[in-house]
């Protein structure tokens, strides 16, 4: 029997982490951000049927970047966990924090067990509160660590560039249209600082809307409503923020915005973002 090569634990973990990160980077990035009435999930997804975002429970949503079969497995596990917990105790006893902990344990165990390959996924678990202060967003990287996020978060291959962009421009109390537009602008950034256009048909958008009368706050935004939100931001912001010294011109041109081009930013988040292509 030949002696196996010695690999230091540090090296083994570093290799596993790199393997997982590379897998995640192959997927498209997605963003999750707070707006006045809840939390919005935005991502580029050419598929209509295979979702990146989904409902876990009444106030809890799930977003994932990376390998589909792996995060789908975790998603269903989460739904089972939440439904079983709600059934055994009460619906109010199902929390994003509890779910995030279970995911963290699961991912962590898989990451450090030598027999299994690490999952190539990065998850976001978000819970909408009755007020913005009660919103919770947890980011769960592949290794089972858990990060409590506020305001905005991006996961996936290009997450760093996108997060930086979002951190600079996201602010509290944005309307849904503003948040959506900012998210699309952020997603349009390439790693090298360039921009590209993401047509509305390739966007997957979902919200946890605290104003919904039903107990289940998760809702997909599709078709006409999505087009209206992407297009109407000009009018909406022109009305609500007419005091801003922005030119109304570009805002009144909805078709050009449908793709969420960064220049559309002159509408609202433009107040923080005084120009496009900053990079």
């Amino acid at each position, binding site marked *: 029997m030949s002696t196996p090569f010695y690999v230091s634990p540090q090296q083994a973990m570093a290799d596993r982490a790199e393997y997982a990160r590379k897998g995640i980077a192959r997927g498209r990035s997605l963003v999750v951000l707070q707006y006045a009435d809840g939390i919005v999930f935005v991502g580029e997804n050419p598929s209509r049927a295979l979702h990146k975002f989904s409902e876990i429970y009444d106030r809890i949503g799930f977003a994932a970047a990376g390998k589909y079969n792996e995060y789908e497995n975790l998603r*269903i*596990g989460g739904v089972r966990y939440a439904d*079983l917990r709600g*059934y055994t105790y009460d619906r109010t006893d199902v929390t994003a924090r509890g779910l995030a902990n279970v995911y963290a*344990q*699961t991912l*962590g165990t898989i990451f450090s067990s030598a027999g299994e390959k690490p999952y190539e996924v990065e998850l976001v678990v978000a819970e909408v509160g009755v007020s913005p202060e009660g919103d919770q967003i947890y980011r769960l990287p592949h290794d089972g660590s858990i990060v409590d996020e506020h305001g905005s978060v991006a996961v996936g291959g290009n997450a760093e560039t996108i997060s930086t962009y979002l951190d600079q421009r996201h602010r509290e109390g944005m309307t849904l249209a503003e948040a959506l537009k900012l998210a699309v602008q952020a997603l349009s950034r390439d790693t090298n600082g360039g921009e590209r256009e993401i047509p509305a048909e390739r966007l997957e958008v979902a919200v946890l809307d605290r104003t919904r009368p039903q107990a289940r706050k998760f809702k997909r935004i599709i078709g006409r409503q999505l087009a209206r939100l992407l297009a109407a931001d000009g009018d909406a912001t022109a009305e609500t923020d007419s005091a801003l010294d922005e030119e109304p011109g570009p805002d009144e041109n909805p078709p050009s915005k449908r793709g969420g081009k960064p220049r559309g930013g002159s509408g609202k988040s433009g107040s923080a973002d005084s120009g496009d292509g900053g990079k």
Partner: protein
Amino acid sequence: MEANTRSTGRLPAAFLTPGSSSFMDFLTDHQPELLPGKQTLPPLKGAIEAPHGTTILALTFPGGVVLAGDRRATMGNVIASRDMQKVFPADEYSAVGIAGTAGLAVEMVKLFQLELEHFEKVEGAQLSLEGKANRLSTMIRGNLSMAMQGLAVVPLFAGYDTDSEKGRIFSYDVTGGRSEERGFAATGSGSVYARGALKKLYRDGLTEQQATTLVVQALYDAADDDSATGGPDLARRIYPTVTVITDEGFRQLAETESAAIVRAIHERRLELPDGPRAEIL
């Protein structure tokens, strides 16, 4: 292998195993003791005394369906509860009303709601109305051994079928046998009287307003003749539960709305105690 997540923190293998989209199947595999109907009862003489719910009725109108129930629960000749809720949303487009042993029925509804919601979340699509009705059948059948001991649950299921774009009603017997009803249906101890009233007053082409009024009329008649069915309690402001399901989804009438219907009917009954008269010929 672990029975629950509390022991290890991580999701047990059963949670991550690809499989059925049914929550009941998951429970059956994972924690069967949580399923209602799985409990084995000790041998008993006679029936168990437990609160019973009474009259539930449903009727269709163009564009939707109305499902309503009284509020009384009885235990023998005692009124166990005056304001019991017996009609529940099953999901966005369907509702279930229950007559029978209250404790089991409420438990069954809870599991049924979860079953539909779980399927919807896992699959990303809703079950068909037929699928939902069949699922309820299975659950009643699972309760058969308890039903034989007197703990029967007999639901009435109504929903808006988004495929055929109309309201539909399904009634059940204690063995889980399911039958689709045309026009109207009722279940529970007061249902014979309610059905009589519905038969005389129902007609095609009712408006939503007429349909909601009609169910309250029928409940009034049921309470008139059946002591286990509670009539509208004007003094305590306890009114029947009336729900409407249309293509816009499930909606329960607000207390002010059902109060208005009840008061209008009550006014008329002061003059005509037996209610509106149908034509003889």
